[in-house]
């Protein structure tokens, strides 16, 4: 599986847009880019997944350039409750594949 690299931490203020970029230079053809969120003492929670271009759901947007070597998770108008660790993962198509978590990005949102 392709290794991912993302910033260790980011700080923001309520109401701002936050963009977290992840690099995955060795991503394979059958890999998808997936982002999870984890609050302290809770299990990771799926946020969004994409293969290429742009994906948007009610929580976030995911931008993936044509070469797919990086991706950007965009959180619009963050609030205090968005303070969490955000993980960028590369996952194979299909089922039964383990998820390999890195250290993630600790996002801290302040007033």
């Amino acid at each position: 599986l392709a290794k991912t690299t993302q910033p260790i931490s980011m700080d923001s203020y309520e109401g701002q847009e936050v963009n977290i970029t992840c690099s995955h230079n060795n991503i394979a053809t059958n890999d998808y880019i997936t982002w999870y969120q984890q609050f302290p003492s809770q299990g990771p929670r799926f946020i969004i997944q994409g293969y290429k271009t742009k994906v948007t759901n009610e929580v976030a947007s995911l931008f993936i350039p044509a070469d797919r070597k990086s991706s950007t998770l965009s959180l619009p108008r963050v609030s205090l409750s968005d303070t969490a660790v955000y993980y960028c993962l590369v996952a194979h198509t299909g089922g039964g594949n383990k998820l390999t978590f890195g250290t993630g990005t600790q996002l801290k949102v302040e007033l």
Partner: protein
Amino acid sequence: EPEVTQTPSHQVTQMGQEVILRCVPISNHLYFYWYRQILGQKVEFLVSFYNNEISEKSEIFDDQFSVERPDGSNFTLKIRSTKLEDSAMYFCASSDTRDGRGHAETQYFGPGTRLLVL
């Protein structure tokens, strides 16, 4: 919305004792997983389970660990003789890719069991 549940939420045990962590995956999911997270560290894969057998296991998942799906709803992780270094948060997850859309599966995680070995 369906969710993965885990019991107990906290478990304290003495070194050398056996513990069983329980999970109820989302109904109709086919794949089941255990992960662990030592305090302040990364989430680590332990084992995946499909069709009543282990699909993959990590180096962490040695002979002290075992998994079982004793009935149609529960999925358990047993640690036979706990060590101090087994202290961690243990997460169960499940997934289902029968929708045929050809994407990478979404794994749904439970709230975890915090295991403390003294």
